[in-house]
């Protein structure tokens, strides 16, 4: 639908008015900064939010949030707020601050500022409406930006923690000199597969391993991507001078590997872990002595 010249001008006027109104709003917020900030800090305490912080810390954070809030209203751009929000989240997440607290305090600030607008413009209903029309969308977008920034940072921290747990739970074991065992258990997604590969390669270098036994008895199923990672792990290990023996290969997984075009004959596979370790020891030049003989000597 074409915009006529008249309605284009009309739109322009509304935008210009909105900007004017926002500027008036911003100066009101700046002029009353001290008491509005204090009112907000009190309401935060009343609502029992940010209990992990001391009064001084709370006040300091409240000050910087307030100033960023007003600045965002003044400039109309949100990049600075996004960075600030990420920054703030990085600081407070380790302190144990939770999502509902962050959302809560931002909404309280929005309310405190809205109330002060009611108080100022209560004599002029038309003006009040116009100012709220300008304020509300901006305030809501601010609340959204801060909350989303916080949640994303939390998600990032959680991912990092999961990664750390994964690393701890997939040990690369050195059972003998020059021999490493990597038992893989459970579900492997491509990310974990890649992490395993990196850990194994580093382990080969650190332990100067010549043989690696990768045991996948505990792996129920593997899709083509992960099977490919396994093959890549074998190839990369060879580049570091290590021979890889894969044990516990189920018929299904063997089929998957063949399907992705790898010649299973080229891969060194043994039925079970015990057999794999024995072959590894043979490759390393250890004599394999039956337990009974060893006990009697």
């Amino acid at each position, binding site marked *: 639908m074409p915009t006529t010249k008249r309605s284009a001008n009309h739109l322009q006027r509304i935008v210009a008015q909105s900007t004017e109104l926002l500027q008036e709003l911003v100066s009101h917020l700046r002029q009353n900064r001290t008491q509005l900030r204090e009112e907000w800090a009190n309401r935060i305490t009343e609502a029992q939010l940010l209990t992990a912080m001391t009064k001084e810390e709370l006040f300091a954070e409240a000050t910087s949030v307030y100033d960023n809030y007003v600045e965002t209203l003044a400039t109309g751009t949100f990049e600075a707020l996004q960075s600030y929000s990420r920054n703030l989240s990085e600081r407070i997440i380790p302190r144990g601050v939770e999502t509902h607290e962050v959302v809560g305090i931002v909404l309280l600030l929005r309310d405190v500022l809205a109330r002060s607008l009611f108080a100022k413009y209560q004599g002029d209903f038309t003006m009040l409406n116009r100012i709220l029309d300008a304020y509300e969308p901006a305030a809501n977008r601010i609340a959204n930006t801060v909350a989303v920034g916080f949640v*994303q940072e939390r998600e990032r921290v959680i991912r990092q923690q999961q990664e750390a747990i994964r690393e701890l739970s997939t040990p690369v074991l050195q059972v003998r000199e020059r021999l490493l065992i990597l038992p893989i258990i459970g579900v492997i997604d491509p990310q974990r597969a890649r992490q395993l590969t990196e850990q194994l390669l580093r382990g080969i270098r650190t332990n100067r391993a010549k043989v690696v036994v990768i045991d996948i008895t505990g792996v129920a199923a593997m899709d083509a991507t992960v099977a490919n990672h396994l093959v890549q792990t074998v*190839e990369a290990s060879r580049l570091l001078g290590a021979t890889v023996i894969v044990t516990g290969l189920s018929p299904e997984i063997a089929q998957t590997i063949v399907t992705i075009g790898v010649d299973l004959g080229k891969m060194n596979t043994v039925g079970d872990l015990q057999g794999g370790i024995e072959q590894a020891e043979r490759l390393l030049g250890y004599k394999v002595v039956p337990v009974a003989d060893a006990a009697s000597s």
Partner: protein
Amino acid sequence: MPVPQDILVSIRSDVDIVLARQQGRSMATSIGFAATDATLIATAISELARNIVTYAQQGEVAMRGVETSHSKGIVIVARDNGPGIRSIPDVLRDGYSTSGGLGLGLPGVKRLMDEFAIESEPRRGTTVTIRKWLK
């Protein structure tokens, strides 16, 4: 820490390949990529720059840090005005088995990165754009 600026490396000879990948590695590191990812990025740049030298004789590799509300990353654009590629699907065709390092190596480059896009027209040149994000 501010995201690093644009870097443009003119590619004319094999010496420029080394320069491009060194710049790529150092930009990747300053963006925050770990050693493994920085190596993947440097290797991808090396292959793309090598293609320029081999097939187009000259071109350029541009690299730039990027930042969105979700993450930070690096974007690399390798472009030349060379003979172009007649059939893009053919050069991107790839089984999981190794290629032995022959040909354009584009499927390999695609595997190394998170995002890969290629535009090419015979006689008009080729532009490859690749991206990798911090996890």
